[in-house]
């Protein structure tokens, strides 16, 4: 049996798959000790651990350690003259007219930053050699000065020559074997010291927390008879064995959102779709990402709590739009939704836990798009009166009916999502109309119809059990590892062979690392070049297939880059004076060992009960919606909107002029009808 468990802020989701079929369980999360929720979910599903071959886990533990500043006490070791590197940051302000501003709280204190006398230059040569004896002496004193749990080592230009970082790590391990040591060249081999130091420090900071958590988790699994493989989801959409994550925790920073994308890829492919915009809407936020030809877009950098993380992650854009988003009127009289959220506590007014402010979930209840008895299969009744009371003041201010204001609030929330999708599609040169929209998470399927209409997207694919797709995605994830190097290669006749050689080196290392982690299947390898015009500093990603790698020439590389530049910047080499020469500045390798696919049982629709109807206020008008259970036979033949389809984990809205049909894998394919 294969089991995926996703621990979120509010709920812990479990999906178990074996020959008998799919089991889905949702239990409350236990933030003080997240593994408790996992074992509770296993118990609720009636799963005996000795029957599990493969357990995949996604969690927010690393993110929370950063957000709550509960990582291990961390020291920084850096080049002489640069102890303030983490505190100076890049020196700009996020809001330019803000006068009272403090930088995000650093994760390493100034008093815990230590300098060593050394300097490596940009070409890798050693300008000031490391004095081992003096460094050893300094480290012994400095690191004994506080109860450190981790050390981040980030030296200038170590991305090109890591010898000094390695030597320092050896010294630290010799005297402080219990300390977690993270070197910058291990986490990010790219220039720009602040971003690399930030990544290194964050990595060191979450390392002890992750190591303890996974150690504890693993012990208990074994104690309860688990003999299978235990792996963890990474931010890049692939998984790695837990033992490997314990050594490189930073790659698991955004494992939750990434799991959803991995699930979307798998379900999309099953539905015959390879170009997908994922739309994961939960309680407080919405994550969207772009999948092109079944490959999620990868961003080289992201941030957590304003701190940069330079490690490949699935390019996910987040907005503060979720079921709990608070609806409000700003000082200028505009209706707004989010980013403030009522969260899990008190939650929306209709949850009856003391929430008073109007939220998106309350708006759905008023419109009628969420039936009062729909949550958790009816286990959590919703209070319509409380929702109406919460929206009362806004309705009065805008001179609208409760239904109108609720409907407007949802349209404003949708607009926030539309902009997030534009950020990852139109802004990177991709037309959203070339993609299908795949909604999931508790609220995604309710909003997808209107959002697809706004973006001109003609097809929506709602995966089965859309509310727990992330847990499913854990099972669908391949073993994946990324490696990135800075390597300047001028684009000339020698470039193709230089690229091939560098890539071969990286590939050999990746295969070796896989083997060391106990993954023996030969990985498939992908290559992305970071290219730019000579003189530029930011690169564009130019992906190469293995066939491209074999066949590439100077001209084909140039053409591929020019096309990309034109797409993003609306101009290219031109015939002017500037920017004709092109260079490769780095390579990124993706190695993934695919898991054997599991076949899900074919969906049989059996329910033939008569369908009910209800009045719903949508897009400014009262409409009669058909209410359809998700196992109803009507979904085989195709069903026209407006309709609401009630799944156990979410509610799906089909707009008027759209038609829904379930495919054999249980995905609901929703098309705009030809006009």
């Amino acid at each position, binding site marked *: 049996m294969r089991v995926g468990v996703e621990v979120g802020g509010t709920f812990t989701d479990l999906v178990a798959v074996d020959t008998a079929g799919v089991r889905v369980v949702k239990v409350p999360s236990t933030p003080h000790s997240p593994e408790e929720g996992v074992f509770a979910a296993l118990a609720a599903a009636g799963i005996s651990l000795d029957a599990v071959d493969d357990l995949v886990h996604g969690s927010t533990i690393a993110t929370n350690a950063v957000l709550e500043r509960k990582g291990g006490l961390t020291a920084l070791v850096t080049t002489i003259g640069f102890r*303030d590197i983490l505190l100076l940051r890049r020196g*700009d302000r996020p809001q330019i007219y803000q006068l009272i501003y403090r930088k995000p709280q650093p994760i390493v204190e100034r008093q815990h930053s230590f300098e060593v006398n050394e300097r490596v230059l940009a070409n890798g040569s050693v300008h000031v050699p490391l004095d081992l004896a003096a460094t050893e002496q300094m480290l012994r004193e400095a690191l004994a000065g506080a109860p450190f749990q981790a050390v981040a080592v980030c030296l200038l230009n170590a991305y090109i020559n890591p010898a000094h970082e390695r030597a320092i790590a050896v010294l630290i391990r010799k005297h402080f074997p219990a300390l977690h040591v993270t070197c910058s060249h291990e986490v990010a081999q790219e220039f720009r010291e602040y971003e690399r130091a930030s990544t290194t420090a964050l990595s060191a900071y979450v390392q002890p927390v992750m190591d303890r958590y996974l150690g504890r988790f693993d012990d208990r699994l074994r104690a309860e008879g688990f003999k299978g493989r235990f792996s963890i989801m990474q931010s890049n959409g692939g998984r790695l064995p837990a033992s490997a994550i314990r050594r490189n925790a930073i790659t698991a920073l955004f494992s939750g959102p990434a799991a959803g994308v991995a699930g979307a890829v798998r379900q999309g492919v099953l539905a015959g779709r390879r170009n997908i915009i994922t739309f994961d809407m939960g309680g407080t936020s919405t994550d969207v990402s772009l999948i092109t030809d079944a490959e999620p877009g990868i961003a080289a950098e992201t941030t957590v709590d304003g701190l940069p993380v330079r490690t490949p992650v699935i390019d996910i854009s987040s907005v503060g739009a979720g079921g709990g988003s608070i609806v409000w009127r700003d000082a200028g009289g505009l209706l707004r939704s989010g980013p403030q959220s009522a969260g899990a506590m008190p939650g929306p007014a209709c949850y009856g836990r003391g929430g008073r402010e109007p939220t998106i979930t309350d708006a759905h209840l008023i419109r009628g798009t969420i039936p009062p008895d729909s949550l958790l299969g009816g286990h959590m009744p919703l209070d319509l009166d409380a929702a109406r009371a919460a929206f009362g003041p806004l309705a009065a201010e805008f001179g609208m009916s409760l239904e109108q204001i609720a409907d407007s609030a949802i349209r404003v929330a949708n607009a926030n999502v539309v902009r997030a999708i534009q950020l990852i599609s139109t802004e990177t040169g991709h037309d959203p109309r070339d993609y299908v929209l795949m909604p999931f998470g508790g609220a995604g399927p309710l909003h997808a119809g209107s959002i697809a209409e706004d973006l001109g997207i003609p097809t929506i694919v709602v995966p089965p059990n859309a509310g727990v797709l992330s847990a499913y995605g854990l099972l669908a994830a391949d073993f994946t590892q990324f490696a990135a190097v800075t390597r300047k290669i001028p684009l000339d006749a020698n470039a193709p062979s230089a690229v091939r050689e560098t890539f071969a080196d990286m590939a050999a290392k990746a295969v070796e690392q896989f083997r060391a982690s106990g993954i023996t299947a030969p990985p498939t390898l992908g290559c992305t070049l970071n290219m730019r015009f000579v003189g530029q500093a930011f690169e564009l990603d130019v992906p190469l297939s293995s066939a491209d790698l074999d066949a590439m020439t100077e001209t084909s590389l140039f053409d591929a880059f020019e096309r990309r530049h034109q797409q993003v910047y609306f101009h290219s080499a031109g015939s002017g004076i500037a920017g004709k020469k092109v260079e490769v500045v780095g390579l990124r390798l993706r190695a993934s060992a695919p898991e054997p696919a599991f076949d899900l049982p074919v969906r049989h629709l059996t329910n033939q009960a008569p369908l009910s109807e209800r009045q719903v206020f949508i897009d400014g008008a009262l409409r009669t919606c058909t209410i359809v259970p998700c196992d109803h036979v009507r979904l085989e033949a195709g069903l026209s909107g407006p309709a609401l389809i009630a799944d156990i984990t979410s509610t799906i809205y089909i707009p008027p002029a759209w038609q829904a049909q379930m495919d054999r894998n249980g995905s609901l394919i929703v098309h705009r009808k030809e006009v």
Partner: protein
Amino acid sequence: MAVDPVDRAVITQALLAAAREMGTKLVRSAYSTIVREARDASAAILDREGNVVAQAEMVPMQLGSMGTTLRPCLAHYRLDEIEEDDFFVNNHPYQGGQHLQDVFIFSPIFVSGRLVGFAGSVAHHLELGGGGVGLNNAATDLYQEGLIIPPTKYNRRRDWDGGAFERLLGANIRVPEQTLGDFNAQFAANATGTERVRQLCAKHGTDVVEDVMVGLIDYTESQLRAAIRALPDGVYYGEDWVDDDGITDEPLPIRVKVTIAGDTLDVDFAGTAPQVRTNINSPLASTGSAVMSCVKGVLLPPEVPCNEGSFRPITLRVPQGSILNPNAPAPVRARMEPCYRAYDAIMKALAPIVPDRAIASGFDATLVACLSKTIPGGFRVCMEVYGGGFGASVAADGADGIAAPLSNCTNQPVEALDMEYDFFRIASYGFEPDSFGHGRYRGGLGQRREYEVLADDVQFTLYADRLRVAPLGLEGGTPAQLTRCEILRNGSRLNVDPRKVVTLRTGDRIVIATSGGAGYGNPRERPSELVQNDVRQQIVPASVARTVYGEVV
């Protein structure tokens, strides 16, 4: 026209997002380190009349004059003369521009043949000719400061990419690859803005989008008027001083009288120093931008977008021939210095009536350091913009080591400079402890950067302020330390004025340390745990904790 309120909210956010995207693309496709690493550039969307509608959160100084810089272009050409591939360029300080290095480019946005507005961008260009490589502090008139491009119209297809304007420009500047590359980055930004506005018009209708553009400006105006109305009517005074004119030692006063009457704010700089012979003069567009940036920062919450509406409630009176409104062709390169003093003078004038929102003076200056070297066949130029500390407020310490308020330039990564330049190296970069003023809340820390010169005949120069007049505190907070620049040769300090060009040799060191921010309130009221923490973090020496804060450590 009655635009649906939801459509209005949607289009408003989309226009702001479009401006943001323009800014991102400008930086990401740029060539010079001053634009791509320090991000000394800005972008905005303007309406047909040249009013700023939406802007990217980049450099306040540049953004505040987008409209002022475009309107002289529109005055020279009829709207029906403008074609799709045309663009306007303007960097003329006496025709709506700032200093010459800030070159503004505006591209018309046509939707089905109708001119809807302009996509505008500006970048600080590393090198634009003139009497010195990158920076000519000795200029006695505008012509020596660089190439002047008056408000003129060109055509992208005809005049760029090997066309006449590009070649003329390229022939007059010392590092054409970088400067022209940055021009291309501006075109990328403008094309992005144009495309996004077109998409909006296609979806919502041009009439609707135009109506929302007008509404957005009105919205900001109404917000600012409401904020002014909430203040007590009256006349308020503020004063600050620029160090000197670089020739004599006399501080130059900037005096402001702010009159609040109803929902209007009248700013009068009568009594301000006359213009000077050196480059510390601010053209009117720059002065206006500084005034508006201060008023916006103090009176409006950060969420209210800044645009042409932020100017409307403000009347600006600046004596002709003063340092804040000089007569042509006075040199203006270091205009930021009097602008910051105008900014601080207004802040001081407003502080008594908005004590919860005004902050103490900070570094509040532009320190630009320029290193250059002649190489066979050309030049290498590096320009760096420094931040310092922010002033403290009634509620918090000032921000540590951060870009000054009218700028928002980032520092340049040491590894980027290591890669790019072989005639100097950054030897250290950090906070300058004890550089700030004390108070119940302390000012932010200034920064210190040290260069090691690796070749002979390296030219170094800078312009700066706060070298003689320190930032002052509020409500009993103490002043911050002065900014300093020292050049060390064989370990001893050279007696030179870094504001004149200094020729350096191998082994010389340059140390630049900027002011922190001034304090707010009585230091004796500072919570003990904050003082203790500053001592632990080696920001405040134990002796200072004892003498200034009465804290035993």
